[in-house]
């Protein structure tokens, strides 16, 4: 019997929701780290018992938590209570919340500023970790996407972090600028068929690809059109909200942009719009069905000024042909007076035979469909605002 484990990050703590494969009866565990924002949690594909969590507060900064037992217990890597904080040589054992930008001549291409909202230079300042992406193969290797936008990697179970400086140093980093939510690196995709290929997305810089394991990067924004920036087809400056792919078809990428839903069939080299007949092509998350690489899901939001669903109706839209033609999925979802938002990391799919789709809202609901989106039920309705939802399918 398989089980599913949902990792839910909220404004005031983390929750872990578990169920058998029927996905009808759920055990709710939490809050973990009560009172703290938990931006994102994700389990290791190589060892599902290993889970990483990004815990942060504007007052007290960034904390990284790691569980080795599926979320039952947690520790800040390298700093367990009542143990020495330095090794025999006096070196700090754990600095799991220390994210320092690489400005060295040897490995970094020192960048001291990016663009501020008004176009003026602004120094790079670490604020928080938006997204944690564990390696597909090694539970102790994990990538972190941070604000101000940069990519970090840990190879010691998150005890220490090193920036992958080739991204900020790709040549145009000084032209990146923040979106309304900050200049965040929020999407990290690892190609399961090519260990050297990875993708990231940044608001508001755009999408980037590395073909050499993260050493060097180049922008992949050709075909994106953003009418709200000075040059709508610029190489840099697009507010990408989320990218997803299916592991069996890694050349095909799907993107929810600030406006527009996009598709690429060439690893992001070129993009075409597939918004089609959506009631609004603004939104944050996008997800691909676990067993149907051309079936994708978005949740339209009315506009960038009105962060709630069109007509007050919460509708997930599904396309079975990779975009353009969409169907509204409404069964079990509120169809009046609904004004929640669904953030970019708050939708995911499980890999059970009958694919489960999940999303969390800023109203504190976590919805589940155990039948590819045809019917929905609320697992919980009254959590703090949901920031992220990830699912683990456990056998």
């Amino acid at each position, binding site marked *: 019997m398989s089980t599913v484990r949902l990792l839910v990050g909220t404004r005031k703590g983390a929750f872990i929701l578990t169920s058998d494969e029927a996905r009808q009866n759920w055990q709710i565990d939490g809050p973990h*780290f*009560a*009172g*703290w924002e938990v931006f994102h949690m994700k389990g290791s594909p190589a060892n599902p018992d290993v889970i990483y969590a990004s815990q942060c*507060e*504007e*007052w*007290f*900064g*960034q*904390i990284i938590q790691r569980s080795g037992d599926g979320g039952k217990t947690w520790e*800040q890597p390298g*700093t*367990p*209570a009542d*143990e020495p*904080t330095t090794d025999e040589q006096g070196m700090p054992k*754990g*600095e799991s*919340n*220390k*994210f*320092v930008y690489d400005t060295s001549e040897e490995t970094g291409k020192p960048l001291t500023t990016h663009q501020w909202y008004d176009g003026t230079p602004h120094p790079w300042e*670490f604020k928080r970790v938006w997204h944690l992406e564990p390696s597909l193969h090694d539970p102790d290797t994990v990538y972190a996407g941070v604000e101000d936008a940069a990519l970090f990697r840990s190879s010691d179970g998150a005890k220490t972090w090193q920036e992958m400086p080739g991204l900020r140093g790709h040549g145009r980093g000084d032209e990146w600028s923040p979106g309304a939510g900050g200049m965040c690196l929020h999407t990290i995709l690892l190609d399961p068929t090519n260990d050297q290929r990875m993708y990231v997305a940044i608001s508001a810089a755009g999408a980037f690809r590395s073909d050499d394991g993260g050493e060097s990067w180049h922008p992949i924004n050709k075909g994106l059109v953003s009418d709200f920036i000075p040059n709508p087809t610029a190489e840099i400056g697009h507010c990408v909200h989320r990218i997803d792919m299916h592991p069996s078809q890694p050349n095909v990428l799907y993107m929810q942009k600030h406006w527009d839903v996009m598709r690429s069939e060439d690893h992001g080299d070129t993009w075409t719009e597939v918004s089609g007949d959506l009631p609004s092509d603004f939104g944050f998350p996008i997800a691909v069905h676990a067993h149907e690489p051309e079936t994708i899901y978005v949740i339209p939001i009315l506009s960038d000024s009105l962060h709630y669903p069109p007509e007050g109706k919460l509708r997930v839209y599904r396309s079975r042909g990779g975009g353009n033609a969409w169907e509204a999925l409404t069964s079990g979802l509120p169809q009046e007076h609904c004004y929640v938002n669904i953030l970019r990391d708050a939708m995911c799919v499980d890999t059970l035979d009958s694919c489960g789709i999940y999303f969390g809202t800023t109203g504190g609901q976590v919805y589940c469909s155990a039948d590819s989106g045809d019917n929905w039920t609320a697992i919980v309705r009254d959590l703090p605002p949901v920031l992220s939802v990830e699912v683990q399918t456990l056998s």
Partner: protein
Amino acid sequence: MIRIALPYHLQVLAHCDSEVSVKVEEPVSVLSAIRALESRFPMLKGTIIDHHTGQRRPKIRFFACAQDVSLEPLDSQLPAAIASGEEPLMIVGAISGG
């Protein structure tokens, strides 16, 4: 031993009560008190003194004997009542409304 009063979020992080006691050699300063605190509760490293700047995080203030010492140099000597444990060094987060 000196006494240090912690805000709620740091109590959650350190799994401790609202006030803790740590041993600090004299002369006692905010910096030496926090370093002693971090040594006993390593999970608090970086949450009071910023990793990058080495300075107090912006939304935190320090109070000693009813005086705001937030803007004093971190290595300034604290009053004798703090060093003796008669009064706690208070680490306070800014009020969060809403």
